[in-house]
């Protein structure tokens, strides 16, 4: 009887610990924000060409990533070998057999409360929804980059493409989001509005008459409200 009770207690403990344990994919998502972390093996002879290609891409608005509306931050990095030239590094030092391409993205999906079926929402279909978007919005850039990787099927076959990159996703253990559930578009509009208010203040800083100040504000502020 005592053994049965002990087993029951152990079972309860295991269930409690299991419930708190991070499940697959759980840590990559925080609200409507998501951390994409892809690691794909690069053909050794292509590593330098790939790195050169990535370094030659346009920056900012000229980056192919600027065509992806939900992406706040992203990076590409070719890892040719791990760094072990520091005190206390393990012996023997860990060595990679292949170079790897790291691609990370921090994105926030739009609020899709209006989409009735939960499973149809962009955020619920991540990372696949984002991978489909990569394929449809910047296919030639994607092919020019992942074309250097081992086993890459190309963007021609949507299912194979998404499967390849989804298999390359490494789940995040802890994801910090500085401004939760705010999309890129919302950040940009908020910044623009704040800038417009500050510009107005700068233009009218010498105005001492409250009545004239109010008049100017009522005249100008409607022109910046559409971006609010």
């Amino acid at each position, binding site marked *: 009887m005592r053994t049965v009770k002990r087993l029951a207690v152990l079972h309860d403990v295991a269930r409690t610990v299991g419930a708190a344990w991070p499940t697959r994919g759980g840590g990559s998502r925080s609200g409507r924000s998501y951390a994409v972390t892809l690691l794909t093996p690069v053909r050794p002879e292509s590593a330098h060409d790939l790195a050169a290609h990535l370094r030659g891409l346009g920056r900012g608005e000229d980056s192919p990533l600027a065509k992806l509306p939900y*992406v706040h931050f992203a990076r590409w990095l070719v890892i040719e070998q791990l760094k072990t030239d520091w005190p206390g590094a393990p012996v023997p030092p860990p060595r990679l057999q292949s170079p790897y391409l790291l691609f990370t993205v921090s994105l926030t999906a739009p609020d899709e409360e209006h989409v009735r079926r939960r499973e149809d929402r962009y955020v619920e279909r991540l990372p696949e929804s984002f991978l489909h978007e990569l394929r449809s919005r910047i296919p030639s850039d994607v092919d020019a980059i992942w074309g250097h*990787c081992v086993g890459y099927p190309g963007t021609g076959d949507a299912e194979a493409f998404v499967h390849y990159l989804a298999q390359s996703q490494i789940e995040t253990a802890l994801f910090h989001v500085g401004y939760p559930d705010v999309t890129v578009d919302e950040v940009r509009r908020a910044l623009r509005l704040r800038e417009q208010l500050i510009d107005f203040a700068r233009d009218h800083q010498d105005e001492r008459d409250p009545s004239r100040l109010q008049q100017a504000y009522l005249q100008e502020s409607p022109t910046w409200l559409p971006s609010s």
Partner: protein
Amino acid sequence: MSSSGGPQGPDGEGGTGDRPEPGATRPPDGRGYDANQFGRARAMTVFSPVRPWYRPPGGVLSLRVVFTVGRAVTGGKSKIRQLSFIHFARWVIIRRFPDHGQPRDPVRRPLLMFESNYNGTFDQYIDAFSYILTRGMTAIWGTSYGFPGPLPVTPFKRYIRGNEFTVDHYYSAYPAATTTMIKSALALREPLRAFNLRAATLDPTQFAAEYRKLLTRAQDDL
């Protein structure tokens, strides 16, 4: 190569995109700019090998517990939230490399990957991490080989530098903005909307008083 990034400096305004600010990380690969920076945004990418579970403080097992607690502690109570210069950050435990038919890469020692998108300089960033998240840093990187502890800060900076990678392409959707500017702008939306609705109905003196209040709020971070 475009240089359409935003102004420079941790929180100031003015300047152009790709020019590094004083104290910025120098490019190790001969590029004419710091590839870990675009506008005010900076990228940090660090990989460190994790000790086995039987070596204190417990390898990946210990990391899992730390991250589970980290995920449970969110909102204002989270210490990382106090570090107001971080846009997005993540910790990833790599226990296997995705298999696409390349030569097998057995991961004898799991890797801990840390990535951050922040504004300010590398030194400011590590200083704040070390002094504010002292215990958190020890709990996380204490499982990695060679971690000297977050304090004193110089060996810790050397450790991070030793494990840090320079990115090949970095993208920010709003390179001119710091996290403080963004949070301030987001917080301004509602009061400004409410003010605009009432602006026409206020008498001029009331209007001027409320306008000044609003402006103070908008300029908090300037």
